[in-house]
């Protein structure tokens, strides 16, 4: 019987179609290529693939500027190719979610072209127009580096149109019922094809109201509630995942009473994981988790270490941001917007122990983890490729021609592979790591396997312990009668810690990776020693 709450236990994997595998040898990844790599995902233990935008687009914002919602970008293949990929994924028990970019379209979308053609156009009401640029004054500009205003002048219809992102991305008008119907038609199109849900982009900005920040408005929640209701009625078990880069208490309303989003990313947790590691202090991490409000039981946080964007530092204080820049982006070229454009492995100096610890945190804190393609093998980046392209380089499959990504001439690749001696495809690739038992790839596969052995990580509560040694982060995850004790050494030196586990007296800790037994827990403090960046997951059994 299908479990409608599948996303609570799922391991997600984010990838670019263009970056994953090139099936037709034109230098750009595509769906036929992706299909051939499904075994890699299945073998890794992935439950759900999140595809970045794959729709026709002028690519002025890496596909987030959509010009046709119901088609596949020709460079990625055809709708038939997508169908074949989706069917093959489902056959392997893999779910697939896609991007739903509904706040705005590309200015090349036929709706916008028609809307701007005349003030009397039936599509005119699909967008937000104004004769002046002084409406919604005070609303913040998100891309300050690129845009001066949220209004852009349309020389065709001689009026201003509203855009929260780039000026070539006009915002849709969600006050117009016809727009909401169109969006539902788009969703329905993909749901009928079989996609398992959507990651909804830029959720907070759907609706505008005078005198407000035009963010997180009640009307926006109403839009989402309506879409969720329609989806549940026809397609139960599908997923809506919110992208809302905000504080947890601001994101909380997007879960509603379990009637809006199933999931939302926990943005502020991510930088604090990196901060706690560098500070060798659990404080920032514990604070943000404890500050996170409860969510409905059917909902879930999405956790991640890295993704296709920069390591965003929007949800930190100025002092924290300075610290993060100082520690993780000493080279200013690594800084972009309010963040750091690096992949996981280079951020952690390629230190295997730190990479493992960070992944262990990702997989043991409350939420469903999202892995970013290539991080399972410790891929590097190239900050000199501009924007965030440095973390969107071709996947490194082998040490051979183009890293096994494409048979095209290397000059034809959509962008160059990482080729330096440390992270280059000759050194870091799936094939060689598959063969090496102790590789990061095989370690990642193993930790996912261990995580999947219990539902406590996806569904259980968390209770932090408070040992005197602040370098040790310890917590107990509980689901019904099942309990897992997690102990992490955030420091690069060996640590001893005394844990107050009196409440768990009588339990036998069983280390979950090697199944080694540890002494029974008693009322007295439980003494442990941990090597640098060590972590333990203990299943507790009362026998």
């Amino acid at each position, binding site marked *: 019987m299908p479990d409608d709450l599948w996303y609570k236990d799922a391991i997600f994997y984010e990838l670019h179609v263009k970056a994953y595998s090139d099936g037709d040898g034109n230098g750009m990844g595509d769906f036929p290529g992706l299909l051939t790599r499904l075994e890699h995902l299945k073998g890794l233990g992935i439950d759900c693939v999140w595809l970045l935008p794959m729709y026709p687009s002028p690519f002025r914002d890496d596909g987030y500027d959509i010009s046709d919602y119901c088609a596949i970008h020709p460079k990625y293949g055809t709708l038939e190719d997508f169908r074949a990929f989706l069917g093959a994924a489902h056959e392997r028990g893999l779910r697939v979610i896609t991007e739903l970019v509904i706040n705005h379209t590309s200015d090349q979308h036929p709706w916008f072209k028609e809307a701007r053609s005349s003030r009397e156009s039936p599509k005119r009401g699909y967008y937000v127009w104004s004769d002046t640029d002084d409406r919604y004054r005070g609303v913040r500009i998100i891309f300050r580096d690129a845009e001066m205003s949220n209004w852009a002048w349309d020389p065709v219809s001689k009026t201003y149109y509203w855009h929260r992102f780039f000026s070539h991305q006009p915002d849709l008008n969600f006050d117009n019922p016809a727009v909401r119907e169109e969006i539902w038609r788009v969703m329905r199109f993909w749901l009928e094809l079989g996609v398992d849900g959507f990651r909804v982009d830029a959720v907070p900005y759907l609706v505008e109201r005078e005198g407000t920040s035009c963010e997180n408005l009640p009307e926006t929640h109403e839009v989402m509630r309506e879409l969720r209701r329609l989806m549940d009625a026809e397609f139960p078990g599908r997923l809506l995942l919110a992208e809302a880069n905000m504080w947890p208490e601001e994101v909380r309303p997007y879960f509603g009473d379990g009637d809006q989003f199933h999931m939302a990313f926990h943005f502020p947790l991510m930088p604090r994981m990196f901060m706690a590691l560098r500070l060798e202090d659990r404080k920032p991490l514990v604070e943000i988790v404890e500050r996170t409000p409860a969510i409905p039981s059917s909902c879930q946080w999405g956790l991640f270490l890295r993704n296709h964007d920069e390591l965003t530092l929007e949800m930190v204080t100025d002092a924290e941001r300075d610290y993060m820049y100082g520690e993780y982006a000493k080279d200013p070229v690594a800084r972009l917007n309010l963040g750091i454009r690096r992949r996981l492995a280079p951020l952690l100096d390629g230190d295997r122990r730190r990479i493992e610890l960070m992944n262990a945190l990702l997989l043991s804190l409350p939420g469903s983890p999202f892995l970013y393609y290539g991080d399972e093998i410790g891929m590097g980046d190239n900050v000199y490729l501009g924007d965030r392209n440095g973390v969107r380089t071709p996947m490194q499959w082998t040490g051979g021609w183009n890293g096994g990504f494409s048979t095209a001439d290397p000059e034809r690749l959509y962008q160059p592979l990482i080729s330096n001696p440390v992270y280059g495809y000759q050194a870091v690739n799936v094939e060689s790591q598959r063969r090496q038992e102790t590789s990061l790839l095989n370690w990642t596969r193993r930790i996912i396997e261990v995580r999947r052995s219990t539902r406590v990580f996806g569904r259980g509560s968390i209770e932090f312990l408070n040992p005197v040694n602040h370098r040790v982060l310890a917590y107990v995850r509980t689901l019904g009668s099942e309990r897992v004790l997690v102990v992490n050494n955030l420091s690069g030196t060996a640590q001893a810690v005394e844990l107050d586990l009196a409440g768990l007296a*009588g339990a*036998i800790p069983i280390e979950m990776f090697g199944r*080694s037994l540890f*002494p029974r827990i008693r009322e007295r403090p439980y003494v442990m020693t941990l090597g640098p960046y060590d972590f333990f997951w203990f299943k507790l059994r009362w*026998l």
Partner: protein
Amino acid sequence: MSTILSDELLSELMAVGQVDVLVGLPTLNHSDSVGPVVRAAHVAFNRELARERTALVNVDGGSTDGTPDIVRDASIVDRETLVASQSLRTGHRISAPYHGVPGKASALRTVFAAADLLQARAVVVLDPEIASVTAESVVALVRPALAGEADFASPAYARHPLDGPLVTQVVRPLFRAAYGLPLQEPLAGEFGCSGRFASRCLDEPVWESDDLRLAIDLWISGMAAGDGLRVSEVGLGPRRLTARPRPAVAALVPQVLDALFTSLRLHEARWTSLTRGSLPLRRSTRPASLPEPGTTVDAEAYAALFGEGLAALGPMLERVLPSSILDALRAAAAPAGSVRLPDELWAAVLLELAASHRHATISRDHLVRAAVPLYLGRVASFAAEVEGLDPEAADERLEALCRNFERSRGDLVARWTAPAR
């Protein structure tokens, strides 16, 4: 704080770590028989299982005859075996008392808990009273789970249908009718199983129940009928018990019937809801020929006891058996000195007894005692029927009985689930 595992045992298990094979050996004053059993396991560990991570866990019920010492000290005595056998790994042999209610159930719970903690791939429980155990039989019980072919491996012995008639005439057919599992020895105290099976047993909420104490061996066999479990049967050759005083039939029959009916009660949700037919067993090669019976049945004496018992216990039996069955029994007893109690009638009798036991129509103790003469009558009838037949033909006759019981499964469920009379 009540725990299954003592700190001493836990501490020893910590030293053992993960294992491939765990042999459990429940004992209580078995100094006369346990040595060869331990040696058989030891040889198996050193010879056939030399590459596996192994441990022998002896859980003792408080022996006063030095059994744990014998377990610890038993070693290979045969020089040839000693030279040819060498485990690649450190051998672990643990002897520890168990916690909880005295009895084999607590001992097995401890074995299962140890297997669960050590993530054993295969578990074998040995009966310290089986003198015929060999390294080969230990390995035979280990292999199905170790190879991932079965979750439960039950022994099959090369013995004549008249050897152990309590098993052949009562336990085997009724067990098969209920669970659809054609096991030859559902009552066996020795078996092999997967770690998954051990963990599943451990998770059952029955361990504190007094009923389980009575019925532990049959309860374990009944667990094998669980969803998604694969069952195999391994031929272990002839079965020989250590010579020691055993209960007389008059005491043994009530004891086994009580255990059988109780196990059905403990598992009633499991077997009454089964919709499948008889489960195919994976069987290892059966011995080429069955031996002649080891003991003779005094059919005439049994028939006489049947007739007398039926007459003496009439009023009590009238409360548990319908008059049609009682009349048929009386008719079967009519020719003095002989009895003819057909399969269908015997199945009907056992079904009624089982249902009456469940509903406690009369005192359960009285019920199982009243069943003794009926059992004797059936054994006399069967003995007369197979007299002169070769062992294989007699075995076929036994198989026919079991199939007859299997056909009555619907009646068993109906009688079991019907309200008390």
